[in-house]
């Protein structure tokens, strides 16, 4: 058995290569159980205004997903400018007592939720300069991925397909090119729909996969979380094992010699 290395992000080691979000669940209990079943160690959260008159007894997400147990990855979801993304990261750092790891995403359009690359590059530079460890959501463009790692992002996270679409890996060849040139861990972020999509991402050689809707929007989220864990592990092992070459024609599995006729 080949001993797999750990996923290393910003000098921290993780046994799980599945990263999960906490959005779209029915309640905190379902969130907690799904995340537990996924085996994920890095868990994303969003940063939002408190509501005036909010119930103070309402359970707190960070009590359910404790920063003592999980590595919290605050995101900049919903930000459409570099400025808003940087502000959100600074608020997250204050909220989490100086925690430096953030997921940067600057969106360009609410129909596709594709990243706004010029704004993403500006925000990434500013955040890296300000001491953040930046995991960055980006398109599957290898040149942009390279540029983001050169800026100093600790992980580059190309989309497999639009956020929440569940379409699976739409451009595996770009993902392979990004992986081949990678200076930092490459984590597919967004677009997987089911366990086989996660396995394919890992078979391509990704260092991990980040997902939310594929688990939360399944009919049985907790079961899907468990399926994703296995998909990630199976894909990783298949990658390490090295798949057989594809051939156009058959090759018999049983010997030709010694047949009775």
């Amino acid at each position, binding site marked *: 058995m080949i001993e797999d290395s750990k996923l290393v992000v910003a000098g921290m080691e993780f046994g799980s290569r599945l990263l999960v979000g906490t959005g779209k*669940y029915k309640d905190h209990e379902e969130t907690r159980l799904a995340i537990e079943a996924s085996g994920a160690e890095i868990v994303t959260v969003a940063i939002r205004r408190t509501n005036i008159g909010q119930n103070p007894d309402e359970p707190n997400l960070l009590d359910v997903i404790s920063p003592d147990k999980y590595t919290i990855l605050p995101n900049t979801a919903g930000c459409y400018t570099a400025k808003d993304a940087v502000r959100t990261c600074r608020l997250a750092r204050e909220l989490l007592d100086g925690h430096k790891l953030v997921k940067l995403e600057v969106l360009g359009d609410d129909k596709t939720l594709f990243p706004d690359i010029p704004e993403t590059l500006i925000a990434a530079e500013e955040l890296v300069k300000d001491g953040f460890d930046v995991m960055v959501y980006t398109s599957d463009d290898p040149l942009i991925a390279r540029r983001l790692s050169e800026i100093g992002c600790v992980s580059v996270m190309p989309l497999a397909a639009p956020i929440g679409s569940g379409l699976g890996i739409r451009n595996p060849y770009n993902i392979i090119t990004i992986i081949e040139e990678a200076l930092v861990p490459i984590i597919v972020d967004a677009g997987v729909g089911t366990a086989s999509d996660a396995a394919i991402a890992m078979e391509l050689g990704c260092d991990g996969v980040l997902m939310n809707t594929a688990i939360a929007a399944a009919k049985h989220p907790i079961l899907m979380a468990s399926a994703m864990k296995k998909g990630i592990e199976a894909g990783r092992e298949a990658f390490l094992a090295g798949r057989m070459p594809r051939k156009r024609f058959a090759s018999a599995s049983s010997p030709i010699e010694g047949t009775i006729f």
Partner: protein
Amino acid sequence: MQFVLNGESTEMSAGSTIQDVVNTMEVGTKRYAVECNEEIVPRSLHTKTAVQQGDQIEIVVAIGGG
């Protein structure tokens, strides 16, 4: 004194501090962070920072997201 809290115009007595504003929000035991005029106000300064007329204050918490 008028200021803007999470996008809404708010009135409090002059001399109120950031901590006084936080107390009106019923954040309970949640972790939160405060920004005033787009600058972070560190937790250690909440009781010492007076809110000024026209300040733009944001108080945020962590919620579910992907």
